[in-house]
Structures are given as C-alpha cells and as structure tokens.
C-alpha cells in the first residue's frame, strides 16, 4: 500500500531514534517501560507522519510528538519507581570517562530530573538539547516569559535537591 511512505519513515526514524531514547530515559524508570514508551512514540509518529510537511526538520517534529506522547498519551504502567533499576539497565552512563566524584554527581542529577513532574522534564529535555525559549514556549504552548520562569524554578529545585543530598 503505502510502502514508499513507510520506507521513508522507517529510514528517517532509524536515523533519529536517539531522540526517542533520550526522552524515554527521562520519563521512564526501567527497561520495560522504556521500550513501552518507545513503542507508543513510534506509533504516534507514524500516525501523524502523513501530515508532516517538512516545514520543520524531521528531528524537531519528532521530538515534539514524542514529548507530547510522554506527557499526554502514554499510560504509565504500574511499576515501582526505583532508581536502582536504571543502574543495571540500558542507557547507562558511561562512567569510565568520569572520575568517581563526577560519576556520583551525574547519577544523582539524572535521578533528580526523573523525580520532576512531566512538564518540568520536558523543559529540562529541551534545555539539555539547547532549544531556545521561543521554541520551548511554542512546544509547550506557554508564553516565553513563563518558560523562563519555569526553567529558573527547575534549576532552583535541582539545586535544593543537590544541597539536601550533600547534607545527608
């Protein structure tokens, strides 16, 4: 049927799959839910692909639909929220490049981000991807000023979490 469209989509998605993996990394806590969310993102992307006109880059379009899937469409399966699962599963931090202090800090930061709410995670994702505030605001549907305010609050929240941890 639409084999040409399908082929085209598969090639594009294969090349851009890290976008999906990275979002999954922030929104899920274990391998099973990572795969589950990845699957749902693929379906959602495919569903709206015929309307993708190429006004934006495939990667931009893909991360928006994927974030929407994580925030609005994905049904979180009942799984224990443990951070332990992550250390032994996929997407491990390649610690060999870091000294033990940096390694600890990274692990802690990833955990901290995973404890944020769904919207805050989306902001962090776009921040880590170097998106500007105009794009962040547009993606979420809020004003640019509010996107900035929110981002500052998140930074403070994480700072607090770090401070608390260093006391403990």
């Amino acid at each position, binding site marked *: 049927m639409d084999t040409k469209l399908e082929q085209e989509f598969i090639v594009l998605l294969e090349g851009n799959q890290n976008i999906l993996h990275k979002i999954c990394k922030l929104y899920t806590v274990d391998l099973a839910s990572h795969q589950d969310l990845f699957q*749902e993102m693929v379906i959602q992307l495919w569903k709206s692909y015929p309307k993708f006109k190429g006004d934006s880059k495939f990667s931009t379009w893909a991360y928006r639909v994927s974030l929407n899937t994580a*925030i609005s469409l994905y049904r979180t399966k009942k799984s224990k929220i443990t951070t332990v699962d992550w250390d032994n599963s996929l997407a491990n931090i390649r610690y060999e490049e870091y000294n033990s202090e940096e390694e600890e800090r990274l692990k802690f930061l990833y955990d901290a981000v995973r404890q944020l709410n769904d919207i805050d995670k989306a902001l962090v994702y776009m921040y880590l991807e170097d998106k500007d505030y105009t794009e962040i605001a547009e993606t979420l549907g809020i004003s640019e000023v509010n996107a900035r305010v929110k981002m500052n609050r998140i*930074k403070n929240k994480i700072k607090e979490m770090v401070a608390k941890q260093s006391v403990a």
Partner: protein
Amino acid sequence: MEDLDFLKQHWKKDDDFPKVDREEIRRMLHRSSSSIVKWIFFISVLELLAGLALNFFLPGSGHEPGDPAIMIVLEDIFSVVFYVVVIYFIYMFFTSYTRIKNTNSTRELLGDILKTRKYVDQYIKFNVLYILGTGVVVTSFILYQESIERSKSGDMVFFLIAMIIFMALFMWLLIFVVRMYYKVLYRRLVKKLNKNYDELVKLEEEEIDS
C-alpha cells in the same frame, strides 16, 4: 558549573542506547496503540451507548394503555428533550475527538483531550439528572393516583413514607454507583492529564493574580 550544564555536557555525548533496526521499527508501526486517548475514546463510546440503553428500560420510555393524557404528553416531552441532548453530546464528543492532534502544542493537546472527556462527563451527569427527574415525576404520579384510590388516610401516610424511603434509597444508590465508577475508572485515567494541564496553566494564572 551549574548542575544542569554539567548534565548537558554528558547528555550531548550520550548515545549509548540499544539500536532499534529497520525491521523492528516496521513491526512497531503495525502494533496497536495503548494511548490514554484511545482508552478514553472506547470508554466514552461505551458510556454513550450505556446511557442510551439505560433509558430504554426506564419507566417513562413508553406509553401504557390507560395512561392519562398529561402523562403521555410529559413522557413525549421528556423523550424529545432526552434525544436532542444526547445527539448534542455525541456530536460534540466526536467533533472534539477529531480535533485531538499530537502535533499541536502540549497545552492544546491536553486541553483538547480534556475537553473531549468533559462532554462525556456532562453527558453522564445529564443522564443521572434525567433518571432522577423521571423518577420524581413517575413517583409523584403514582402517589397522586394512590391518593385517589385509597380512602383511609393512615394507609396513605404509610404508603407515602414507604415510597419516599424507596425513592431516596434508589437515588442514593444511583449516585453512589456513578461516583464509585468515576473514582475507580475515570479519575485514574485522566489524573495524569489534569495534573500536567494544571502545571501548564498554573503560571499563567499566577501572573493574572499578581
């Protein structure tokens, strides 16, 4: 270095993910979605149908021989109002459902999903009110007829009390069942959506307040 900027440095280099190959992606395309929207859609359609089915079996949905004229007229008015409202809700539900697009901004998407669901909620509320309303009309009618037929007033008082207790129990049970149903099924489904939507509109409201 700030925490998030430190994380960013690592994030950029992080590509240590298991590769999903083309064949796997192809298989994924043809699996069925388990998204919240899909669940909401199926549950809503079932609820719309249940509302219709329920009213079919209720008193006041058909004329009995010997019904007085006022009762027949009332029944007809009730039915017409009922179906007009049902058609309105079904229409609003489907049009807002088709507006849901995962390519919109997050806020629009969440808003559209919640709006679609809101129509079904209103529909259920309408159904409950309708059932209670018909219940009250039918009961008062029965009471009126009984009061003509029974001559002893003691008898009538007893009957009146029994009838009121029965109706109160029936209404309480109905509201209880609907509430439980909502708590168990529906709240769980849209809890996440409501939370995320509130998170997005909260800031805007703070601005207006200050």
